[in-house]
Every structure is written in structure tokens, then in C-alpha cells.
């Protein structure tokens, strides 16, 4: 009993208790914990204008901050057209052209890509709409094993005050950001303010948050979906719900080519996908050219039946022969698109 009392007393008067401190506690910025090996591998370094953090959001797209690829922070000027995304300490896909098995040893994997800056970057003030995308020249899954992209949360699930958000970054550490970077680190903090006007999620404090080098990094909600992109210190994040349609190019007409890996026909009304990314189609299929993405179209007794029936027949031919097919589609959501045209090649 005496020992127990002693322990309790020691804990109460311990100098580590914050209430006993005169000086502010020395906390590493983003220094909560190092990200364990194998976790959040989709978060890497973006080498653009200086070094930033960025996140793979699908197999070929990286999300970062616009000021990581533009010199202007009050005007969209000095933007570069190409950048390099670096997966840190991941297992690469084995290269069959070499005798060694590369997939057994962790290393960095670099991918270049073309840069797109949000069209309203700085339009609402300094660092507003601070978003940029890098479209990679290769699919990440072709070069990195088991990499799992981190999607952006749908726009109607915007974060609320006191939500616990996890910040990840490769930036500097220590009080005042005076210490050198210490690799990929994470910290979970509450969202304490959502500023209006130039909308910003305020997550950090002077002693905890983000530092130079964390810019472009993600703030994740408890579903591990991105809700913010690191824009300025300490812990100011631009909310992604403002840019959701732009990030995923919803409504944009795109094209991709590949062989069909799945072809499905189902009853009217059963559709495909979760409620947040649903396509009300009777025919759905997937292509090697865009893994994790599903294309669809209706097959109903209406004026488009003949053309849709013919598209299905082309898809069947391609599936049966293994031939590539080019698909032009309207983006419906992060992982679904509505087919407009199909071309056999």
C-alpha cells in the first residue's frame, strides 16, 4: 500500500506533468510518432519547388499543395510543369529484366508526372485553393508493390470542429521548426477552427502541427480519407471538400486504353458501387489501363438500346480475344465513369 501511495505521489509531482512546467513543453512538430514501416505508403515526398509532402490518391494521381509547384503564393505564377513523386522505403515491383528480385528489399521509388494547379489558386487570397495534382507517367502499381492510394473524402463529409485529424508529413521538427526532418511522421490533433472567407482548417498550435516540408501533406479523418492539404504553418490545411470535383475531374471527359479484366451485366436498378460513388448502369467493366476504376453504361429498352447493345458486343469481343479497347468516359466519381464511346484497337 505504501509503495502504491509513493507511486501515485511521484506521478502527481513528476516534472513531466504539464501543470508543473514553467516553460512550454518541448514537442516535436509532427513529432507524435514516426509512421511505422508499411503504413501510409501512399504519402511520399514531392520534389518540385523545394521539398514537400504529397499523397497518392489513385493509381496515377498525386495530390499536393500548389505552392509546392509554384513560386507565387499570392498569384499563380512561376509554376513548373513537371515534378517528381518519391515513394519512401517501399517494396518495388520486381523487374524481370534483372537477375535479382527487387521486391524483397525496401527502397525509394521515384515517379515523374505532369503538374496541374487548381484554377482558383490564390483567387480568394494568399495561398487560397492551395491544391495541385501530379499526373504520374506510370501507374504506381506497376512500380510499387501493394501500394494503397488514400482517397479524398467525399465533399458532403466535410470535417467538423473537434474532429480528430491525423497529419502526416516529411517536414522539419522541433520547437519553432528548428530541427531537421526525421522522416515520415504523424500526429493526431483536434480541428479547433474553420476560418471563413479564405477557408482554412486550423489544426495546429505553435507547438504542434506542421513545419516547412510538410506542405502538401494530408490531414486524414478517422476513416483515413483526406480532408485537408497542408498549406501554411502551424497546421493550417486547405479543405479538400472545396476542390473535390476538380481533384477527381468530375464531369470531365477522359479516355483510357487496356484489356478488360471484368465484364458484368446485372438487373436494372441494382447499379454498382457505394452510395457515394454509385453508377446506375446495367453493364459495368474494368480495364487494365485504370485499375480500381469501374466503367458503366445503361442497357435498357429505350432509344439508346441499339448503341448500348453494340457497345456491349464490342466489349465481349475484346474480352473474348484479349484485345485492347479504348474507352472514352465522363468521370462520375473517384472510382467510376459513364461510358461515352468504345473503340477496338
Amino acid at each position, binding site marked *: 500500500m505504501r509503495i502504491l501511495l509513493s507511486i501515485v505521489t511521484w506521478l502527481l509531482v513528476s516534472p513531466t506533468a504539464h501543470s508543473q512546467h514553467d516553460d512550454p513543453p518541448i514537442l516535436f512538430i509532427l513529432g507524435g510518432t514516426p509512421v511505422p514501416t508499411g503504413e501510409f505508403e501512399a504519402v511520399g515526398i514531392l520534389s518540385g519547388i523545394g521539398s514537400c509532402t504529397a499523397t497518392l490518391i489513385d493509381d496515377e494521381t498525386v495530390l499536393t499543395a500548389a505552392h509546392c509547384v509554384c513560386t507565387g503564393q499570392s498569384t499563380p505564377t512561376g509554376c513548373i510543369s513537371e515534378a517528381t513523386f518519391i515513394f519512401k522505403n517501399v517494396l518495388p515491383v520486381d523487374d524481370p529484366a534483372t537477375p535479382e528480385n527487387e521486391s524483397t528489399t525496401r527502397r525509394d521509388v521515384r515517379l515523374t508526372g505532369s503538374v496541374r494547379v487548381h484554377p482558383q489558386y490564390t483567387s480568394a487570397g494568399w495561398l487560397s485553393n492551395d491544391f495541385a495534382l501530379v499526373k504520374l507517367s506510370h501507374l504506381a502499381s506497376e512500380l510499387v508493390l501493394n501500394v494503397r492510394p488514400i482517397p479524398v473524402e467525399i465533399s458532403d463529409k466535410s470535417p467538423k470542429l473537434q474532429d480528430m485529424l491525423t497529419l502526416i508529413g516529411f517536414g522539419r521538427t522541433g520547437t519553432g521548426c528548428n530541427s531537421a526532418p526525421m522522416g515520415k511522421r504523424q500526429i493526431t490533433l483536434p480541428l479547433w477552427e474553420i476560418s471563413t472567407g479564405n477557408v482554412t482548417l486550423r489544426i495546429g498550435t505553435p507547438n504542434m502541427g506542421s513545419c516547412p516540408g510538410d506542405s502538401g501533406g494530408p490531414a486524414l479523418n478517422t476513416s483515413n480519407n483526406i480532408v485537408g492539404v497542408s498549406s501554411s504553418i502551424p497546421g493550417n490545411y486547405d479543405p479538400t471538400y472545396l476542390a473535390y470535383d476538380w481533384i477527381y475531374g468530375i464531369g470531365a471527359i477522359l479516355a483510357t486504353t487496356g*484489356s478488360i479484366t471484368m465484364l*458484368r*451485366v446485372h*438487373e436494372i436498378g441494382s447499379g454498382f458501387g457505394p452510395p457515394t460513388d454509385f453508377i446506375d448502369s446495367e453493364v459495368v467493366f474494368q480495364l487494365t489501363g485504370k485499375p480500381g476504376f469501374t466503367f458503366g453504361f445503361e442497357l435498357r429498352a429505350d432509344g439508346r438500346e441499339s448503341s*448500348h447493345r453494340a457497345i456491349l458486343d464490342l466489349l465481349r469481343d475484346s*474480352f473474348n480475344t484479349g484485345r485492347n479497347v479504348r474507352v472514352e468516359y465522363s468521370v462520375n466519381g473517384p472510382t467510376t465513369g459513364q461510358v461515352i464511346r468504345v473503340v477496338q484497337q
Partner: protein
Amino acid sequence: MKKSCLILLTILLTSFLAPQASAELLGHRNKQLSMLRINELGSKFGPSNDQLDVEVVVALSGVEGNFGFQLRNDKNRPVRQGMLDLLRDAFNNGWNVNIDYDINPPRKNGFIVRVWLTKP
């Protein structure tokens, strides 16, 4: 008061003890087709206690029961024709086919709602 309590108790017991109607379940199979049949409208398939009022019927290798869907000149014709075409492709190439089906246990025969083919 006693009477109303008794009525309430009776209602509760009835709702708990009444035999539950067999619920429709969604099943899934991924197998090769061992039979693909199309029959005249209305000729149906199976015994009276496990009958499918369908025109397209399949059997899957090693699977008890049969599965089918209607193929009629109605609003579902295009999608049913599409499902039939996938079944033909699977049969002609000897591929496995995935089906989802609605079934009312203990019946063995079910109604196909989705058909799909996959490649690695």
C-alpha cells in the same frame, strides 16, 4: 388493466413465436457452366415446389440446383439478353462465370440477378 396487459403479452408472444416466413437470400457462385438451356415462354423449370418461371436456365459444375432468369419482350429484355450473351461466352470458352442469385431456402433453384466474367 389486467386485461390490457394480457392482450399486450399475447401480441408480444405471437410476434416472437410465429413461424418466420423464409427470407430471400442473395447467393454467389463462381463455377463453370455444365448446362445452358433456353425454353419456351411459360414452360418453366423444376418441380412444382421449387419451380423457376424462367426461360434461361443454367447448371453449374458441382453445384446442386439450377439458376435462371426470364427472357421476355419487356423492359428487362436488353439486360437479360446481355446476361445470356455472357453466359454463352463463358460456355463456349469453358470459363468460370460469376453469378449472384436470389434464392428462398430450402429451395435449391434461384433467380440470377448478376452475371460477370473476370480475367487476371
